[in-house]
């Protein structure tokens, strides 16, 4: 059974009807690259130039109040020229019981601005993305590895990384 997390504010059919998408469309400073829906979960695609403004808007809009950053993660698409990475933010609104997903495509080596100033919990989540994918977050107060030991060679969740690692035991 598919759980519609947005049942209070969103019918689950048309992503353009989602209140978060409506609020982002209404704001001129946050142009959306795309909008998608999968099993009632709505995703907005944003460019890295506008990601901070859009996420701050989603947190501060009185009708949305996405006050919880549930996760920051990423996906590596090596065959996608010029946009090899997706940085993905999973948001949750405790008061409105809504979930929302924001994807930000990045090129290889491109930096993205840190959202530590928006949600403090992003500190460790972005360190994990940096550790596993090698994506740099500009403005992060403590950008170092969190899961792998210091001095680890490579970023394991990149597709070219060998599963068994590069260390020969």
């Amino acid at each position, binding site marked *: 059974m598919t759980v519609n997390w947005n049942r209070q504010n969103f019918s689950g059919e048309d992503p353009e009807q989602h209140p978060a998408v409506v609020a982002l469309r209404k704001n001129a400073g946050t142009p959306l690259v795309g909008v998608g829906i999968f099993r009632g979960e709505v995703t907005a695609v944003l460019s890295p130039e506008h990601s901070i403004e859009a996420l701050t808007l989603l947190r501060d809009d009185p009708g949305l109040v996405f006050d919880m950053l549930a996760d920051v993660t990423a996906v590596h698409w090596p065959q996608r020229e010029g946009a090899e990475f997706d940085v993905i933010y999973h948001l949750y609104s405790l008061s409105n019981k809504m979930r929302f997903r924001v994807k930000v495509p990045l090129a290889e080596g491109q930096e993205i601005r840190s959202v530590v100033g928006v949600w403090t919990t992003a500190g460790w989540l972005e360190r994990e993305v940096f550790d596993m994918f090698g994506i740099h977050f500009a403005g992060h107060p403590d950008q170092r590895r969190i899961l792998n*030991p210091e001095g680890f060679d490579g970023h*394991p969740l990149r597709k070219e*990384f*060998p*599963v068994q*690692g590069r260390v020969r035991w």
Partner: protein
Amino acid sequence: MSTIGKNKPTRVYRNKKPREANILLTSTSAVINHSQRSSLMPLTFGLACCAIEMIATAGPRFDLSRFGWEAYRATPRQSDLMIVAGTITNKMGTVVKKLYDQMAEPKWVIAMGACATCGGIFQTYSVVPGAHHLIPVDVYIPGCPPRPEALIHGFMTLQMKIDQKRNFGVAPVDVEPGFRGPTRKEPF
């Protein structure tokens, strides 16, 4: 008729009570080995699901205290046996080495389970493929996880190994010959 005269003690012990006459002949090496193997103090060191089996072994059902090894220590400085019970990740590997270095001599290591033996199912970048890449291992216990009986068998195997340890360059005399086969001359 009296039988006292027939059971008369030999001349040396004529004036002593029978209890005082008991003498046990053995070697220093055997006594040291017997002392060390009979009161092993394992380090509480559960890394993954094998720790659950280790806890069960120490519990009343399998009752490790029957053998005298139940005193788990929470610090390496008081223990002489490290049971590596679980997956050793790369990040935990430095801790395993550090704890082993902090243990006082003589010390022994049991690698419990498939992960501590060879990495188990985790043939990945983040897992050390076997405790022997970090520290010397005395006994390997296969299983995923091994049953408590297997851990007890591993303990007893380690006891056999300690029994054959040479002290002061001298091998112990035949201690508990039932432990060893009649033809086995060398230690494990």
